[in-house]
């Protein structure tokens, strides 16, 4: 099931909310959340939900073992077992097809490529489990002795299938002790509706543009058309994914959980390192904490770890070479920025650093889009007009004018406008009142528009489902 869906919005969610707020005791509330979370997951994956449950049982037990044998070999063994289990799961369900395909490229090797469908959200919940196990082992968090609380942490439906990757430490106390305040409820609901609008109004409509221009054969696309489409695609990915994170964070707040921010206006960054501090923060910080500082590679540690982090970041996004290239591509720019040093980076005029970072990011999204290398090659040639393609074409221009308001709103929404409005209106009571009322009307309006558009839409899966 996805959030941007009438069935979720008008049947699943109200049932869940009513059941949740009908009971007062936190135990029952947790039970309600577990039941609805498993139902939510099983709705799309009736069989694979058992894999999720199995993963939670195995890792809960291993967590207990780590706690008990903290200082002896068994503890280390338990950590290793858990990591092997988690990474093995990912290997089998996500990368086996990719690995065999690549092995088959070696002459003489001919392994049948298995056809395994990727269980929804496996990349997200597996990473949550890994972070829990490592935090336990490093004594960052107390082990969770109650299985159902652990199950709740892993399966909590707001973040289950498309992130953010919530750390156990973030919601550790809130699992047993949380309250939904009026502020939480109101802010959470508004946040959810804004996220929904990002997905349904912006992302879905941006996608129709991308789909129209990035077809199987892009050789005829003009230079302008190629740049236009890849920019639209970058905006699409941002609104699709950050919209989902907004909805997750909003829903979490309604239930009294406070997740960390996952997107902090990434496109206003001045360099690539900053971009990754703002884009999909929960993934970036995961790799930073659990891979970057893990001592592997001796003297050349820094470079090897940097390579590993960006290789993994790429690979995490999909079982295809273009994602790996995409990850390493960013890694290279981050390395260059590191070598230049913070001082010199700061000395670069703002205009230049913005142009530099935006071009790198936009081209990066082109790499992200094209899984096929021939197409990717065409894409690069198209960007500079090396495909005998025209500079501009009527269809692209028409599409731009046809979608000018959409594009203007999308670009404006990349900036922290709501924070700005909040600051401007904070001065007097009257302005606060007006701002709050406007926000209310605005959010409800968005809900109604989204519902209408959802009636019109046939299908609109989230992009990040694949990961």
């Amino acid at each position, binding site marked *: 099931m996805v959030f941007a869906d009438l069935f979720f919005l008008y049947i699943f969610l109200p049932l869940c909310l009513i059941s949740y707020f009908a009971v007062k005791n936190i135990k029952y509330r947790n039970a309600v959340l577990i039941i609805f979370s498993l139902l939510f997951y099983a709705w799309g994956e009736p069989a694979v939900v058992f894999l999720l449950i199995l993963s939670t049982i195995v890792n809960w037990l291993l967590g207990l073992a780590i706690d008990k044998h903290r200082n002896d070999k068994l503890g280390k063994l338990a950590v290793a077992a858990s990591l092997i289990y988690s990474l093995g799961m990912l290997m089998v369900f996500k990368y086996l097809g990719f690995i065999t395909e690549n092995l088959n490229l070696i002459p003489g090797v001919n392994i049948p490529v298995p056809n395994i469908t990727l269980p929804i959200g496996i990349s997200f919940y597996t990473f949550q489990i890994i972070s829990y196990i490592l935090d336990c082992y490093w004594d960052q968090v107390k082990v969770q002795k109650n299985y159902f609380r652990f199950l709740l942490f892993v399966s909590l439906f707001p973040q289950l299938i498309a992130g953010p990757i919530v750390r156990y430490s973030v919601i550790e106390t809130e699992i047993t002790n949380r309250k939904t305040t009026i502020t939480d409820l109101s802010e959470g609901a508004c946040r959810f509706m804004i996220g929904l609008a990002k997905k349904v109004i912006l992302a879905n409509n941006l996608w129709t543009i991308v789909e129209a221009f990035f077809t199987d054969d892009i050789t005829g696309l003009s230079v302008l058309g190629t740049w236009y489409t890849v920019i639209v695609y970058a905006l699409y990915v941002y609104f699709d994914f950050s919209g989902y994170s907004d909805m997750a964070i909003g829903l979490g707040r309604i239930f009294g959980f406070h997740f960390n921010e996952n997107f902090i206006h990434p496109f206003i960054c001045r360099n690539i390192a900053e971009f990754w501090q703002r884009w999909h923060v929960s993934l970036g910080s995961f790799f930073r904490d659990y891979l970057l500082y893990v001592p592997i590679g001796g003297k050349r540690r820094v470079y090897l770890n940097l390579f590993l982090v960006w290789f993994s970041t790429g690979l995490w996004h999909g079982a295809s070479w273009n994602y790996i290239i995409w990850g390493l591509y960013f890694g290279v720019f981050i390395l260059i920025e590191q070598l230049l040093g913070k001082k010199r980076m700061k000395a670069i005029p703002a205009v230049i650093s913005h142009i530099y970072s935006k071009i790198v990011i936009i081209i990066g999204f082109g790499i992200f889009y094209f899984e096929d290398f021939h197409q990717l090659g065409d894409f690069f040639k198209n960007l500079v007009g090396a495909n005998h393609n025209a500079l501009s074409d009527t269809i692209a221009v*028409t*599409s731009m004018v046809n979608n000018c*308001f959409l594009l203007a709103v999308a670009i404006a929404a990349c900036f922290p406008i709501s924070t700005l409005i909040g600051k401007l209106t904070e001065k007097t009571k009257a302005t606060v009142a007006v701002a709050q009322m406007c926000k209310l009307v605005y959010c409800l309006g968005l809900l109604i528009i989204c519902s209408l558009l959802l009636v019109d839409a046939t299908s609109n899966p989230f992009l990040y489902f694949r990961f």
Partner: protein
Amino acid sequence: MAKRDNTTDAAKTKRSKSDDSSASAQRRQKTDTKFWFRFISISVIVPVYLSLVICMLVMPRSTISNIEKRELAKFPEFSWESYWSGEYTDGIKNYFDDTVPYRDTLKQAASRLTKFLGIEYNNVQVSGQMYVVNNNDKKDNAASADDKKESAAVVSQTSPAASSVNTDTDTESDTEEIKPKGQEIADGVFTNGSIVVYQDGHYRAMSMYGGGSGSSYINALNNFAKDLSGVRVYSMIAPTASEFYTPKNFSDYNASQEDDIVDINNKLSNVTGINICPVLAKHVNENIYTRTDHHWMSLGAYYAAQTFAKEAGVPFADISKYKKKSIEGYVGTMYTFTDNNADLLNDPEDFIYYEPSNNIKTEYYSQAYSFSYEGQLLQYIEDTSSLYMTYMGGDGYVTKISTDVKNGRRLCVVKDSYGNAEIPFYTSSFENIYVVDMRYFELNLVDFIRDNNVTDLLFTMCSYSAVGTNADNLEVLRTRNSAPAVVSEEPKEEEPDEVSSSHEEEPSSKAEENENQNNDNDENNDYNDNYDYNDNNGEYDNYGDDQYYEEW
């Protein structure tokens, strides 16, 4: 090391969090207003949301969509198999999403909302898969660089003059294209390489033409002419509707078909190239092209056939000698090609065709030329979206027509589906007509023409086939070693299933039509009493025209 980094980080996040919450607590105490407004917010959001939920649940669910003319999803039936595959839960979700109360009204409201995405540019809206107009193709492949320069120079010289002429009068000149419709601006959408425009009170859908050199077409035809000395060879490429009806504001999406046809004709040797664009251009205000299908109407094919007959020097019967037939409620293939354009679906047209009144005998053969059955030239087609298959039931068979004409002329028509509509008009011009589809014929065409003593060979197909990959097959037809015809073997069905357009019609009108058609059959069926079309009906259904479009 790793531990320490992690610790500090975790500590930092914890600290910043507690800072955050205490700060927000302070702020809350300071400004109660914000809190109270949040309280008001939530006391508005909750009832609004709940009433929306109640409306969704309590109001009667929609069962059919009038805009899309389809039945909406039904609640799925439970089985463990469908449950484990996820189909059942998915079905429930789809049922709920599809059968929203007042669906059509809401959908229309939503489509009005999408107008706010931007501004219409030259009255054009683009959507669906894009399509590239390769105006350069032809020049790259065929013409030399000098030619290009020259033609460019000519254009730049003449265009100011030409445009000034155009604005004043509809003057005809030899080099100027006559496109009365092309001078207008019309509202429309561009979807998947096709456009739907509103012209003269109706919607018309057309596939845009991308252009091409037709080099393999030229090459194959010239070779045919070499191999078949003594046989008159003609090429009559059929332009598609976009040549005549593309509004001015869509002209950038469309290449000129006449330019390509003239180009091809100039490169043919010992082949008579016929350009029917000027002929059809004179009749654009008549019903020469379907509005809802990618083919032409019978009348367009009539004018083409007339031009060919004149060129070939054979008698030709005026259209008044034919029985005009009309079937209502025709919405052809363009509906599906335009992602089910609702405007098109709700603006059906009449399918009009002409039945020869002279005595003819029509025999159907497999693609390897073994006899299948004797039937009617114009067949009854049940599915109104496939009415273009009226002509010989589509492209599934090689057709041999014997007429009452005695002039010693025997015609072989090598065609794609466009040629089908011309065939009835040749029945008063030739003794025998052999109709061969250039995509599916399985024998050596040169041998076939020799064996049947064909005197006239006509290549007639639409511009897409002539400049596209279909034309590659012509050389195959000429050079292949064909096995001798296997007697009494049904043609193998290789095409994918027909793309069915999900279009419904009222049962009553269908029954009426059915009856009319039956009567027609009886009237004109003097010579093949044994023929029972119901037996064969299933077979023709397999040859939808729809899929051929993809091969263009």
